[in-house]
């Protein structure tokens, strides 16, 4: 083998770095990593001591009004340093600590400041730096004591042929003991790091809650799409297929232009409602995108009722909305969950009118009175020739009945004496609902 195979030259510096990295990576959780950590802890401990002094000084300065900004700056610096400490702990100690949520991810100065000052992880970071200072002091003391002992043994004691061997053993023992105590400090640091630098329980819970909420939102959106657009498209498709057949001469099959004309009318209405719903879902998705990490699709509220009915009016349904006992600014005293439920009831009721009765005169009424929220969708006698009274409600009605019952309310759906149909839901309104 030629010597060149050992010497790669400057052209392969990247390779050398990679090799060095591999060596370091292999050594990471082992003693070299801990030794480096112990050594860095001395200057870092001194620096953190300075940071603490600064915090105390600026806390005192708060009394004079100028310290607030300083405190915020130092807390911010503490979080920054904690980030570096996490990397150190990961690389040198092999402790698995996830990155913290960044204050920068919050929107608005006020929220950021709140997050900075009130966030548990900020104070855990402060606690961690304190622990680092103490550990550094301990390490320093141990090194000084051990060093002093070795020096004393080396210079103050009489070394001769008889004492040399036991003294040498003693020096080795002292040195070994010193290093063991330093190592103990580092191991202790690794334990504490997992506690103070790791994800806070409240952070983990918040993340879990957020992902659960997203999943629920997504399921609700999927269900909505299934029940509204999927359904409308299916009905339209079958009507269109049937219409085409009735207009296509084949064998002894009679042409039925009347059916075709009617089918086209249904397709028109269905498609319009479906588009209105698609519009709503897309706008919800867009708002969600704009809200970035906001986390949830906005559920429709009572304020969205007017928009819903406007879409139906465009579809040819003469429908009026009567609101009573609700605040003008969107009924903020009615919990959002109930607002959404009422929206769904109105949506289901009016869609069923279109589906089963054509375009009769329809009234939607929402009343909030005496702790009870009442919503009613009532239509006049069917205007459509081939229509029949609704079969006690559409497919969404069973689900709505369940949700109403869960909210402690009741839902009724029945024909009116005058040949129309009425869907009515009453819900108790409590602040906690």
């Amino acid at each position, binding site marked *: 083998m030629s010597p060149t195979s050992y010497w790669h030259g400057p052209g392969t510096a990247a390779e050398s770095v990679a090799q060095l990295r591999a060596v370091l990576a292999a050594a990471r959780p082992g003693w070299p990593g801990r030794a480096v950590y112990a050594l860095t802890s001395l200057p870092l401990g001194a620096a953190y001591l300075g940071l603490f002094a600064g915090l105390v000084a600026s806390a005192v300065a708060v009394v004079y009004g100028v310290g607030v900004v300083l405190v915020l700056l130092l807390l911010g610096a503490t979080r920054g340093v904690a980030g570096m400490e996490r990397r150190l702990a990961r690389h040198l100690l092999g402790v698995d600590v996830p990155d913290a949520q960044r204050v920068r991810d919050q929107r608005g100065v006020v929220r950021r400041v709140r997050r900075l000052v009130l966030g548990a992880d900020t104070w855990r970071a402060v606690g961690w730096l304190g622990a680092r200072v103490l550990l550094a002091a301990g390490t320093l003391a141990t090194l000084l004591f051990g060093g002093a002992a070795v020096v004393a043994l080396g210079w103050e004691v009489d070394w001769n042929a008889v004492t040399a061997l036991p003294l040498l053993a003693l020096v080795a023992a002292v040195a070994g003991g010193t290093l063991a105590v330093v190592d103990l400090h580092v191991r202790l640091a690794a334990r504490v790091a997992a506690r103070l630098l790791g994800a806070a329980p409240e952070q983990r819970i918040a993340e879990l809650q957020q992902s659960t909420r997203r999943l629920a939102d997504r399921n609700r959106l999927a269900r909505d799409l299934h029940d509204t657009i999927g359904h409308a498209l299916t009905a339209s498709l*079958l009507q269109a297929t049937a219409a085409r057949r009735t207009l296509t001469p084949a064998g002894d099959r009679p042409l039925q232009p009347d059916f075709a004309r009617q089918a086209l009318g249904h397709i028109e209405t269905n498609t319009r409602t479906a588009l209105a719903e698609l519009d709503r879902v897309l706008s919800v998705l867009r708002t969600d995108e704009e809200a970035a990490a906001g986390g949830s699709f906005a559920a429709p509220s009572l304020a969205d009722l007017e928009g819903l009915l406007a879409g139906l009016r465009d579809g040819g349904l003469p429908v009026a909305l009567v609101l009573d006992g609700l605040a003008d600014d969107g009924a903020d005293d009615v919990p959002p969950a109930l607002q959404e439920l009422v929206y769904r009831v109105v949506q289901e009721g009016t869609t069923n009118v279109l589906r089963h009765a054509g375009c009769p005169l329809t009234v939607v009424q929402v009343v909030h009175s005496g702790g009870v929220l009442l919503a009613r969708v009532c239509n006049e006698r069917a205007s459509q020739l081939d229509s029949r009274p609704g079969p006690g409600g559409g497919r969404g009605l069973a689900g709505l009945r369940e949700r109403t019952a869960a909210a402690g309310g009741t839902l009724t759906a029945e024909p009116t004496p005058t040949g129309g149909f009425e869907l009515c839901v009453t819900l108790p309104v409590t602040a906690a609902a």
Partner: protein
Amino acid sequence: MTGTPLRLVLVDDDVLVRSGLRVILEGEADLTVVGDAGTGREALEVAARSDPDVVLMDVRMPDMDGIAATAELVARDPQRPRVLVLTTFEDDDYLFRSLQAGASGFALKRSDPDELVDAIRVVARGTSLVLPDLTRRLIASHVPGRTRGAAALPDLTAREADVLRLVAGGLSNAEIAARLHLSRETVKTHVSGVLLKLGARDRTQAVIAAYESGFMAL
């Protein structure tokens, strides 16, 4: 196929779906729609009254859904009528439950009219699975994983086991006959034997049993 047309009952809570289907199916010489219903409960009445060969059943309906109505129909008479479930989406969780309840197969509402008509004929004849690939995938993905073990099934002969494996693979009687070098009549006899031993009323139920017992594994 006999000269008398197949008698159908349409069950869907949407009038528009029903009226569309009626026009499409009435256009076929060998099919006749003898009744329709908007709820599961209504479907039971109509079926009792009009003696259909096949019930086209929507799944999600108010006042008794398609699953419960299917189970009730099967409990009344395991042979007639057969139930073809109509669904909007193929990944519907309710779909497998309706097969489990005793439906003979399913078809997508959006499918081509010819495919739909074909599915009805296949269900009535019972000589093949409807939508074999989809059905197999649906059953396989919903049956909880079992370890493979043919012993879990009642004593099928080696031939019957071969036939069941091919039935579960979605092959029709004609295809099985070609694969095993048997006559169609012989295959038909074997399939009947398998259904009898498994206590299954049709191929779909036999496939579910094959997966549930671990005879078929993923």
